[in-house]
């Protein structure tokens, strides 16, 4: 049988409408808006100014410090302005606006479609190339990859786990990538193995993607040490700690990182981006995005340049349906709702989901009936109802003791709550407040 993590988890309707839609290239838009903060860590600082001409792939904003990431132009054209835009974080962010002129790439990028399997770069060179190319984790969190690859002294990595789970409903960008770019991904995995100096890599893919499992297994058989594992369909299996538990049966201890168990987890899309960066010298300025929704006439998967407003994607998929009540950047379980269609696609955007109005409304909040369904689906075995009550009442010390900061905000508790209680909303509030209080305490 397929493996999975033992406790908790839910099975929302999969709704993978675009699982068999091949990845198309979205035409380059007339203007792009590239936020300087597309990753966790310090925002990048723009290197260009108004009126400058940039080529596709050119560095336009430099990462600041170690935990940060470079930003490259995804198009060629003139810098219109550097201003603020409301992006998918929901807040105003500084962004570089570029008016597109043609599509002239910088010369160092190898644009041939030939698959290069031989890895010429050494370990430090690979990490340096990842940093230069602005590679970040593409599963959603957008954590700079070079930070994850640089193992601190005193720690060892012995297993690399590649996350091809894609447990969110609707999203199929990783799925299609695994089907169509399996060879590139496997080479990317080999590069990662070399960078981390490990012999073993495990690729976890949920059982609802048999074609992806087949393609990846075939390619993986050509390389020593890479194994592909089918996993039982269960949300939130794509979460780092749950995936580790499912594949290796090891639990990352409370307050520790996977690296403390000698494990590093990377997403398949990240592996593909690393392949392109290392073998083709192509910085990260393009990614696969699923555009989907029940009312869309033509949902699909597209290679999209970063900075493309999502309205371009929606137009390519058949236009904004009349009944759209909510636009989600990411999946319906963990994505962020955006308030306008001008929001740009960034490195961490795995999909855009358009939700019809009747599905986009939250139901009336009713009193908690203490059914404990939230506890039973919590994959961290916690007590969401309690954490919500503590956060709602502002009892931060008790919230901290209840382990509120362990929550990874998968949303299973809010999903199952029969009384429609906004459990995760309050847990998130409690989490941020407790983290703030902790920082203040540590600062003293």
């Amino acid at each position: 049988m397929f493996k999975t993590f033992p406790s908790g988890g839910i099975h929302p309707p999969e709704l993978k409408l675009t699982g068999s839609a091949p990845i198309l290239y979205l035409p380059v838009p007339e203007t792009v808006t590239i936020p300087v903060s597309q990753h966790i860590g310090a925002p990048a600082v723009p290197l260009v100014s108004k009126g400058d001409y940039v080529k596709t792939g050119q560095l336009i904003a430099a990462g600041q410090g170690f935990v940060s990431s470079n930003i490259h132009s995804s198009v060629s054209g003139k810098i219109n302005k550097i201003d603020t835009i409301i992006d998918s974080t929901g807040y105003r962010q500084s962004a570089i606006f570029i008016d597109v002129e043609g599509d002239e790439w910088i010369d160092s990028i190898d644009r041939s479609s030939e698959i290069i399997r031989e890895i010429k770069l050494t370990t430090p060179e690979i990490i340096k190339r990842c940093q230069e190319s602005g590679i970040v984790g593409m599963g959603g969190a957008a954590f700079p990859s070079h930070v994850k690859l640089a193992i601190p002294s005193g720690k060892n990595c012995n297993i690399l786990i590649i996350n091809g789970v894609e447990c969110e409903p609707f999203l199929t960008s990783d799925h299609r990538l695994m089907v169509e770019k399996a060879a590139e991904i496997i080479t990317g995995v080999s590069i990662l193995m070399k960078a981390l100096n490990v012999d073993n890599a495990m690729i976890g893919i949920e059982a609802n993607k048999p074609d992806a499992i087949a393609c990846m297994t075939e390619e993986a058989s050509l390389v020593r040490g890479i194994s592909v594992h089918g996993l039982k369909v269960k949300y939130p299996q794509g979460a780092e700690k749950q995936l580790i538990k499912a594949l290796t049966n090891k639990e990352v201890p409370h307050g520790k990182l996977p690296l403390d168990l000698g494990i590093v987890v990377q997403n398949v899309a990240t592996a593909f981006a690393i392949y392109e960066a290392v073998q083709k010298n192509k910085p990260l300025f393009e990614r696969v995005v699923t555009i989907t929704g029940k009312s869309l006439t033509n949902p699909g998967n597209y290679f999209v340049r970063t900075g493309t407003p999502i309205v371009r994607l929606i137009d390519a998929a058949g236009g904004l349906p009349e009944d759209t009540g909510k636009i989600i950047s990411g999946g319906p379980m963990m994505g962020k709702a955006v308030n306008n269609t001008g929001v740009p696609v960034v490195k961490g955007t795995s999909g855009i989901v358009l939700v019809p109005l009747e599905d986009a409304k939250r139901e009336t909040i009713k009193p908690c009936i203490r059914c404990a369904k939230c506890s039973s689906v919590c994959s961290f075995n916690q007590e969401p109802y309690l954490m919500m009550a503590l956060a709602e009442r502002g009892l931060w010390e008790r919230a901290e003791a209840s382990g509120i900061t362990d929550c990874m905000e998968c949303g299973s508790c809010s999903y199952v709550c029969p009384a429609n209680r906004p459990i995760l909303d309050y847990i998130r509030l409690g989490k941020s407040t407790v983290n703030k209080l902790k920082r203040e305490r540590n600062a003293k």
Partner: protein
Amino acid sequence: MSLTIPLTILSLSLLAFVSAVILYFVAQKFKVIEDPRIDEIQAILPAANCGGCGFAGCRNFAEALVGADTLENLNCPVGGIAVMTAAGNILGKTAPVFDPLIAVIKCNGTAEFRSRTSNYDGAPDCRIAHNLYIGDTDCSYGCLGNGDCVRACTFNAINMDYETMLPVIMDNKCVACGLCVKACPRNLIELRKRAKKEKKLYVACSSCGKGGTARKACKVACIACSKCLQICESGAITINNYLAYIDAKKCTLCRKCVTECPTGSILEFNFPPRKLKSELETASISG
């Protein structure tokens, strides 16, 4: 049989006596010597336990008052001067005089002035909306309208106006305890000096956005044009982070800034009606 009743009475009396003796010694042993003035002061405090004084409740404040060397920095905003003077009399110390304060909401972004750009559909809690995104308008500084201040107020002094989606503070009920100030995640509420006849004059905007951004999001935003700064004769107005601020202690309530403000972001309340310019002119002609 005849013995039953006397025996019962006897044994119960004995039991009562023994218990009384035990209780007496226990009471002696665990006697807590407490300053009787704490009770006296607690009796005159408002008993609202709002925490406006900075202590957890009225009892704690009474203890603090008794324990303090001077009454400086100690104030019960709810009771005001009357209560503090009474407390001072009990303790034989002079109570400091604090200006009575009132809370004002530094946002006037009603639905009319600030167009909505999304519908907030999450939990009805300002803190959650604030952590999530800029809010249901394009102003990332203004009121979110989910009523955290209304819930925080223990004196029922704040109501939500569902037409404007802004909270309204009632002057007669507000005791300036400061609970709403702490509750607002966007720091829109300020405790200002109460002027005579409840006159209020303040910049009803908290937008630190640049003029253009602020104006685009809200018609009554402060755009930091500094016109008020120039016209103010008492030097009460300062501009920081693209936002004007009127110092209530320096302000003479001349109201010149109100008419000068191009966006109307400075509000006045409880002033006598202004004479219109045309009326003034006709008055001078006829006179």
